[in-house]
């Protein structure tokens, strides 16, 4: 019986933090993380970055010791990633905020628009519609977070949540302020504009949901490996013919429709920022796909068919 030994050094100081002997060669990095956690209780597995090279990438949980380029004594490096928070938790907090913040403005809670306007309601039907759409959007996101999404990485650094919440909550407050304002002006082209926007909104939400379900199905058996997404029988997924990340495409579409529906500059600005952020993410994802799969469909664009 050949057993391996593992020594773990600090990535910066190269000081030996622990020495594990009698490790099974078939042990996974996950098991090594658990062993390390026993010795250092405050460094729970999610915040351990274990790597082969001090400046290299973190090893995945599923990697097996004997498949790594190490001898019988493996030298691994540890880096503390800082306090971590689960993706599901982050999403739940991020999305619940805008949902309730919008209501503060919709119901014109006491100090929001001054004492005279408290608890009044808008004479414009589009304002009620906007509230329904905005709430629907975030409720849908919350449902997807709990039941649909399968995250490849479990956690992210804790400080991200402050940044993310400031962004989502801040913008929700800013756009809710204008839409529900007593001096709000409804769209210039009236019912035509609003109806068009609602239809576009519903189509994009349906599309976005379809894509999330399709992506989730790729990982149905609990595996964390990436697979190429393909169009299914659902017509909304046919966008996969043209783009790598149709979920982002539909998301931008949702926000464009909301901008048209409310005809409100802050909404437009939020849409623009979403578009920029999602284009960055889509390009990243697209490059990853191209790198990992030799047979990746070459005519696909990251986020906008034929263009971007």
């Amino acid at each position, binding site marked *: 019986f050949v057993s391996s030994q593992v020594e773990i050094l600090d990535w910066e100081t190269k000081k030996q933090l622990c020495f594990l002997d009698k490790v099974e060669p078939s042990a996974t990095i996950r098991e090594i993380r658990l062993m390390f956690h026993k010795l250092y209780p405050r460094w729970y597995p999610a915040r351990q970055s274990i790597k082969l090279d001090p400046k290299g990438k973190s090893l995945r949980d599923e990697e097996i010791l004997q498949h790594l380029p190490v001898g019988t004594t493996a030298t691994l490096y540890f880096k503390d990633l800082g306090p971590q928070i689960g993706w599901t938790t982050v999403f739940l907090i991020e999305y619940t905020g805008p949902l309730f913040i919008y209501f503060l403005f919709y119901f014109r809670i006491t100090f929001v628009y001054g004492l005279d306007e408290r608890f009044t309601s808008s004479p414009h039907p589009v304002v009620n519609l906007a509230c329904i759409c905005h709430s629907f959007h975030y409720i849908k996101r919350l449902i997807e977070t709990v039941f649909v999404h399968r995250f490849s990485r479990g956690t992210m650094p804790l400080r991200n949540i402050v940044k993310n919440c400031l962004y989502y909550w801040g913008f929700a407050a800013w756009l809710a302020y204008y839409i529900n304002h007593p001096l709000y002006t409804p769209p210039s082209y009236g019912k035509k504009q609003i109806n068009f926007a609602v239809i576009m909104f519903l189509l994009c939400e349906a599309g976005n949901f379809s894509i999330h379900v399709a992506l989730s199905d790729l990982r149905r058996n609990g595996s964390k490996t990436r697979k190429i997404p393909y169009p299914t029988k659902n017509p909304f997924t046919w966008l996969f013919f043209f783009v790598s990340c149709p979920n982002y495409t539909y998301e931008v579409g949702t926000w464009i429709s909301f901008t048209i529906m409310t005809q*409100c500059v802050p909404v437009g600005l939020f849409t623009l920022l979403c578009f920029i952020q999602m284009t960055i993410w889509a390009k990243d994802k697209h490059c990853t796909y191209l790198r990992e799969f030799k047979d990746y469909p070459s005519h696909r664009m990251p986020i906008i068919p034929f263009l971007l």
Partner: protein
Amino acid sequence: MAAAGSGGSRADNGYGGQQARRRKGPGALATGYLPSRCPVSPPWLVIAVGLVRAYLAKGSYHSLYYSIEKPLKFFQTGALLEEYLLIAKYLPGIVPSSVVLTAFQVMSRVFLTWAVTHSVKEVQTEDSVLLFVVAWTITEIIRYSFYTFSLLNHLPYLIKWARYTLFIVLYPMGVSGELLTIYAALPFVRQSGLYSISLPNKYNFSFDYYTFLILVMISYIPIFPQLYFHMLHQRRKVLSHTEEHKKSE
């Protein structure tokens, strides 16, 4: 600071006699461009000369802004492109400089020049305008000489010392001028509703330039000390390094 993209001469500028910019191509841009502007940087020298001439002519310094208004605006705006090219593309490695900090500096100057001093005519006769123009002028002349000599690999200690020491006085001077100018502009902005839009309007948007200016002033509080201490830190690093180098000779 002249626009790097503008090639040869500028017909709209009454201050002729500047050297034409020789541009040999992107690779040689750094070495060809800076020396061709002469160590003491014609654009800022132009402004400095303009200031001195106007002062001597009028005997007072109250309306000096008008004499250097055009070149100041032109060069400040051209500075945007130039700073980007210099700092982000051609000088890294030669001169250590933070892209973010320099970008911030250029942004704030363009803002002061166009969004405050130009837009609010009433502040143009303020002394505070002179304060920051003088501070910027001296700083930039020294800074460009520093870059030029660095590229030529022949940097006199005096220039290096000046760049890393005079800022101790010039930064606060410039910042005071900027803040006083913005403060002076406030009542006029409030009165005229400059750059402001209020509800109701069909875009469902509102913006209050007055509040925005106050926020800008407040933002100086966290940002200025950071820039200042960064420069002090650089000073310690750069000047002590030279001392060691000298000792070892």
